[in-house]
């Protein structure tokens, strides 16, 4: 198993990579949005430990974050903000927004997701997963077919590539999340034995 320090190290390595490869990844919207941003989320995700750290305790055990709703809301609003084509444009043209991106994506998406997910009700988890698949589909729809340029900083066919990227991500997530359900979960199925008598 990877321990906390190791995770911290990986986290900072990814962050350094994101900073160094900034120019290369931001050249295309596909790599900007579907590589750099997820990597930055990973940075935050690996940054904190569930229980061993103080921040973890505060998050996991805190009354304010009951049901994990608060941390999920923070993550969702931050995701919504960075889904705006305007914000992406601004992150390229303005240094302040760039800095904001490198701070908020790990800290306000990655960290809350890591620490809030545990407390989330299974149905809400399923709902959010379905929602993510569906909304990636919407984004694909818009980016593939939009006759206008959504981001001023990017070319139109690059925008279409991003659309297809959303589509494939959506399909991949659907497979990744549903495949385990087909596998035998015999550890849990003691109830079945009882039913069978």
């Amino acid at each position: 198993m990877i321990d906390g320090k190791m995770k911290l190290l990986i986290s900072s390595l990814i962050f350094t990579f994101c900073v160094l490869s900034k120019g290369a990844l931001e050249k295309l919207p596909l790599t900007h949005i579907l590589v750099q941003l997820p990597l930055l989320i990973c940075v935050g995700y690996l940054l904190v430990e569930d229980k061993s750290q103080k921040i973890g305790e505060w998050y996991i055990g805190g009354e304010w974050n009951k049901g994990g709703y608060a941390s999920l809301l923070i993550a969702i609003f931050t995701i919504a903000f960075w889904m705006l084509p305007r914000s992406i444009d601004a992150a390229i043209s303005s240094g302040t927004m760039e800095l904001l991106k490198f701070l908020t994506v790990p800290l306000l998406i990655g960290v809350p997701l890591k620490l809030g997910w545990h407390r989330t009700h299974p149905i809400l988890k399923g709902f959010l997963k379905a929602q993510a698949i569906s909304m990636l589909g919407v984004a694909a729809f818009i980016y593939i077919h939009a006759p206008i340029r959504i981001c001023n900083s990017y070319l139109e066919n690059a925008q279409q590539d991003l659309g297809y990227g959303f589509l494939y991500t959506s399909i991949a997530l659907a497979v990744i999340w549903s495949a385990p359900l087909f596998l035998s979960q015999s550890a849990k199925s003691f109830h079945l034995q009882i039913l069978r008598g």
Partner: protein
Amino acid sequence: MSAFKVNIVIILIGSLILWFTTDGLQALTSEGARRIEITKLKPVMPNITLETMSGAYTKLKSENGYVTVVDFIYTTCPFICQVGGDNFARLQAEINESNLDNKVRIFSISFDPLKDNIEELSYYGKRHNADGKVWAIVRPKIEDLPRLLKAFGVVVIPDEEGGYVHNSAIHIIDQQGRLSSILDSNDVQGAVKTIKRTLQLRRVRQ
């Protein structure tokens, strides 16, 4: 604080941030933002010199109190500028029909003044029936270009085939030389309406 209150606070703050960064959910894209900002601020455009397709010189701000309609093009553009050209041809016809031809000027400004020489400009003009009187194809001096594009908020980036990608739109400059509205480049009817409204405003003020 209880979880419920915290959640409410997060929702409030989050919604407020999204509301302000999208101008009240009006503008999700930079282009949308540019249009909203302009209708609010009506910035004065730099009064630069333009060279027309007949080789004459003119200024962006009209001395006779005309309303000026502007689009940005490059004449070798394979697609979007040609469609824009057709739209401007329709606009020119509409203006002539409404007898506004002594109150309105149309400029198609090239943002590639090095490649677009006088011959290229006049060829583009001929192809789309620009009459030279209401509608002229023009180019700025190369040193004025960055300032001009910045003022209009037009972003031009080179594409892979040696051309450019840019936001194409109908820009309307009022009699005082202020950029007053931006419309979709195929919204000719809307442009005519806006032009009439802009002319009306002045009359009321006088």
